[in-house]
């Protein structure tokens, strides 16, 4: 498969969050703003690429029966290593990512891609798969983070464009706070999934 096709699959047709509906826990928990969404997306993508490469390298060495235990050990090691290195050498980034980093261990997209792809394919395709799926995950998070921040806080890109972002008059004074609470995560997710289903079913009819 060509890179452009893989990218299209990762971001749209086979999007981990919207199509495979995996990795919902971080997608719901960390999309309270656009900047949070980008932070989580990028951090998860880096770990996904690293773990895909290593698991692909070891795929012939790891027996089938213990693959899950081996994958989880490798993923957890990567996350912990990255966390220690960031804390030591880029503390500002570590502080802004905060709890996102340890949360990546329980992100089932990473285990999912290890299981479904990296353990069956070569190193280069696995790395590409990591890039594409990571971008897809980031895209989904960004979409949710954008709407939740807009409705729940009345701002756009706070923390990215200045500390306050763009304040939407009317909405900023009376935001629908529920949207940045957990319930809002489910609501936004539901509406986005519904919209995608509508678009997809329209395509099938033609």
């Amino acid at each position, binding site marked *: 498969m060509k890179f452009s096709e893989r990218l299209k699959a990762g971001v749209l047709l086979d999007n981990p969050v919207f199509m495979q509906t995996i990795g919902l826990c971080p997608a719901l928990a960390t999309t309270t703003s656009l900047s949070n969404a980008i932070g989580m997306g990028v951090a998860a993508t880096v770990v996904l690429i690293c773990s895909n490469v290593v698991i692909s390298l*070891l795929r012939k060495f790891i*027996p089938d029966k213990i693959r899950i235990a081996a994958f989880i050990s490798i993923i957890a090691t990567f996350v912990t290593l990255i966390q*220690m290195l960031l804390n*030591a*050498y880029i*503390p500002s980034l570590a502080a802004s990512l905060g*709890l996102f980093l340890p949360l990546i261990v329980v992100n089932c997209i990473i285990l999912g891609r290890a299981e479904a792809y990296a353990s069956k394919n070569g190193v280069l395709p696995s790395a590409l798969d990591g890039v594409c799926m990571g971008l897809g995950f980031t895209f989904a998070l960004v979409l949710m983070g954008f709407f939740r921040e807009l409705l729940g806080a009345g701002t756009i890109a706070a923390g990215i464009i200045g500390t306050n972002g763009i304040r939407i008059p009317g909405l900023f004074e009376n935001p629908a706070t529920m949207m940045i609470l957990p319930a809002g995560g489910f609501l936004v997710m539901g509406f986005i999934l519904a919209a995608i289903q509508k678009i997809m079913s329209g395509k099938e009819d033609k």
Partner: protein
Amino acid sequence: MSETKKNEGIGRLVVVLGLITLVCALLLGVVNQVTAPQIEQNNINTRNAAMAELIAGAEFEDMNVTEPATKEEPTGISGVYKATIDGQDAGYCVEVQPSGFGGVMTLIVGVNADGTIAGAKVTAHGETPGLGAKAQADPEWIKQFAGKAADGSLAVAKDGGDVVAITGATITSRAVTRGVNRAATYVASLG
């Protein structure tokens, strides 16, 4: 025949998984060894920067006080620093560790010599990003503690006090308030 094959299989599983975890553990150990002193130094820098911001222009003397959390007093104290400006008492900075929503938080609380709160700063926490994490990420929120009476009586609005809680993060707000109170009562007990 099949018995031996099965045993071989299990032996291989044990060896492979053992090897993988061994390599992982070794890597983690080495990297931890390398990064631990740097992380410790970063924490000290963060604390010093926070203290310099809370009581500006002061010099700090470590009092070497720690009071671990107990059942009766769940908020521990991990450091007390006496502040002096040109030899004059300028109050204290107390590092407290109240329990938040996502585990123990670390707060530096400045208490002025005149018995008011100089301010507080969250230096480490495990609160929910976007909600409780605002205690650290939103510099405006924690400013409300500055100037309040340091007598240990602060409470969030929901509990009848006048501390405005972070939306959706009452537990975090309570934890920070508890930390500030703990620091205030400790300093008061010093006289």
